[in-house]
């Protein structure tokens, strides 16, 4: 057991190391001079550009730059953004909150909704409910998030704010602020939920369908259990495993945010920061967001692995 956990953790560390290396060299293949990015739109002369390049070490051999970068990372220093001239950690820190709030809430609702619909649909396979709910889910899944976002925004008229996380004129107290944020969050969450819940529903539905004819369900019924109990206590726990993997994989991606939804609703999150960093290219910021995003996926994968053993004794035994 312990060996297993240690193995998983070792693998995760190796994964993060690979991400660091990849992130550094991959982004250096993006065309464009970072110092030109820094000075774009400003009145600078060539000497100033050369000075900046020297200051940030871009004139040094790439191996030396890499060594410096890794050294910084080990000390917890992800570098300083070229564009904002602030530390990458600070920039990511201030954006991660809104993203976790929006994408976290939406994922939670989407998972609950998807699992519930999936279970219901599988249990009454091919019923009107099953066919309708699957159809609706697929429709949502097929819709581009930005399009659905703009559509929702237009259809709802003045009911919800057109963007941002709060009005600048909202009084500072906790309740007015919380209510205002909730109000601003309705449309972006709805969009996100509509677009992603289908995957949970379909995976749950199909894995439950596979269990439907299992002998242990017949046994359970023979014991005289009600249909509801057979479903909740016997079938669902067994069918839950593939869904757990999917949920955790997706939670890892929660930090990535949802670039399109964040853009449509001007949500001050992390997804757009990544995009801005890429457009620069703002190398330190790009590396920082890459490490954080990839790192969170790896961590969530490890968690999913560990949770498997709690959920399923068979995995523990092997």
């Amino acid at each position: 057991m312990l060996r297993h956990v240690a193995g998983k953790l070792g693998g995760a560390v190796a994964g993060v190391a690979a991400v660091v290396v990849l992130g550094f060299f991959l982004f250096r293949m993006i065309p464009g001079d970072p110092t030109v990015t820094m000075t774009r739109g400003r009145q600078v002369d060539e000497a100033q550009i050369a000075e900046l390049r020297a200051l940030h070490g871009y004139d040094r051999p790439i191996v030396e730059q890499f060594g410096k970068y890794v050294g910084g990372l080990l000390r917890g220093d992800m570098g300083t953004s070229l564009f904002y001239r602030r530390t990458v950690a600070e920039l990511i820190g201030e954006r991660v909150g809104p993203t976790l709030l929006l994408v976290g809430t939406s994922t939670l609702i989407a998972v609950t909704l998807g699992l519930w619909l999936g279970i219901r649909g599988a249990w009454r396979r091919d019923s009107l409910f099953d066919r309708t709910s699957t159809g609706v889910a697929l429709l949502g899944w097929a819709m581009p998030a930005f399009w659905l976002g703009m559509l929702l925004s237009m259809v709802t008229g003045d009911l919800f704010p057109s963007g941002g996380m709060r009005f600048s004129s909202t009084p500072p107290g906790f309740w007015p602020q919380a209510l205002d944020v909730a109000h601003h969050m309705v449309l972006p969450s709805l969009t996100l939920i509509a677009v992603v819940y289908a995957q949970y529903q379909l995976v749950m539905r199909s894995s439950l369908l596979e269990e439907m004819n299992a002998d242990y369900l017949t046994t359970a019924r023979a014991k005289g259990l009600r249909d509801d109990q057979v479903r909740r206590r016997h079938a669902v726990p067994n069918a839950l495993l593939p869904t757990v993997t999917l949920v955790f994989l997706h939670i890892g991606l929660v930090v990535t945010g949802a670039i399109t939804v964040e853009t449509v609703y001007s949500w001050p999150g992390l997804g757009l920061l990544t995009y801005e960093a890429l457009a620069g290219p703002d190398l330190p910021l790009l590396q920082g967001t890459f490490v954080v995003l990839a790192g969170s996926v790896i961590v969530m994968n490890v968690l999913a692995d560990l949770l498997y053993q709690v959920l399923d004794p068979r995995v523990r035994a092997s």
Partner: protein
Amino acid sequence: MVGAAALVVVPLAPPVQAQQPVTLRVAIVQQIDSLNPFLAAYQASTEVGRLMYDYLTAYDAKDQRPVEGVAKSWEKSADNLTWTFTVPDGKKWSDGQPVTARDVAFTYNLMMTDPDAATANGSFVAGFESVVAPDDRTVVIKTTAPRASMLALDVPIVPEHVWKGVGKIADFKNDTAPVSSGPFVLSEYRANEFIKMKANKDYWRGAPKYDELHFVYYKTVDAAVQALGKGELDLVNRMGPAQFDSLKGKSDITLNKAQGRRFNELVLNSGAATKTGEPIGDGHPALKDVKVRQAVAKAIDLDAIIARVNGGYAERGTGLIPPVFPDYHLTPAKAWPFDPAAANTDLDQAGYPRGSDGTRVGPDGRPLKFRLLGHASRAYDEQAGEYVKSSLAEIGIAVDVQIVADTLLDEYSVAGKFDLVFSGWGTNPDPDFILSLHTCGARPASPSASGTTDTFFCDPTYDELYAKQGAELDQAKRSELVKQMQQRFYDQVPAVVLGYDSALEAHRNDTFASFTIQPDPGGVIMAQNGAWGYYGAVPAAAASGSSGPSGLLIGGIVVVVLLVGGGVWLLAKRRGATAGDRE
């Protein structure tokens, strides 16, 4: 559950405040890089900076001539090397301390001694020999050479008593309760959300006519335009033609089509080279021939591009300085006519006969096939690219339009690896910088370095005029020199200036009745050379500080209903389930 719902409902009816502050809400779409005036370089940041800090001199709202800023009056010595500015009594920092000449000297000296402080505006003090304040009212600036742009020093003046204790300038954010002197003071900054400012009631020009100014961050202009329609915003700029047209005919919105400071150009690779003249890149040799470049200028239909691509919201291009600066804008003695027939004749005579496929062939036997690079981020480039392509096809020149990522385009253009490329610049009231981009000295020092030029233009006549205008302190004479330079540029065609974009703005007229525009007439509200637009805004008579958008209450109720509904449903469900289990 019911109790929880009540908790949520109560704050929904906020105590009606007797006097809500009258607030101007403005969209910002561009990033804020920093609020530290020594670091802030992006337009949105300097715009906020102008509201917080006065410059040494300001630009008049009407005609953009230098007027009182921190200094009220100035004079220069006979040799044009020493400038003496007088800072009058009575101006105050927001903490009550007087604004003095020593603050001015401190600011400039900090930039001259601390490289971090020179980050954003270092070029303004580059030619300074010394700046001293012999007393609280007088600043004396000595320059190493005569300088024409001494009344265009766009440097926010900061309070010495605050900034001398700052420590490392590069690490100072200046975003919590900074001490400032402008018409507005910063009250709250939330990165990526909003910037809140309060009117400075003690401002020396007089207090603004309303209480608060909020800049609200939107990621797209589309979202901002929508918010304007819903009444969540009062003022929006940077609109595209389609967005601007979509607001036409709405009675509560006033549109402002203003003369802009930006131009779009088509750069022709007339021979990319380093400072020392070493050729770089792989530009088409035929473009080194001025006759070919002139033929291109004659073949492009500027009016068609403006009508179709700019939606009519632009003016025909001539020189590097837009008509919004009439002192320097060039009206060429003889403008290139749109005349493909004449261009064809010129090329026939210049020794570029048409080949069998209709494409002309140069004296070296190379067909006239040009690559045209455009920015993937700009819709303009793709559309205008098609116009250029079909126009040049008329005169037997084949064009391959390549729309590429901005970073890639930058890489190609600094290395001279292009034939034609779209470019564009924003201009300042002082023409020095935009003119300097096309001097020989703006070319890169070595093939691997990056210069500041986009044309690689290097012309002794132009450079000679450039040096003269920089040292010419007589306004009329300098205007004349600047126009001569642009005429030279226009005749040599290292680039074709396609058009000067209009600045498209809109504001709600039920909340704000009017704004001060710059210049007047025809000018902008936002992105001015100053802060007149915000400072001079007049609230509408009916505007009594609305308590926020009307949708707030309805939306809030919807949220509560959803929460309560969900709760009740879950409760019912649970009760049903337990009842079932009990059976």
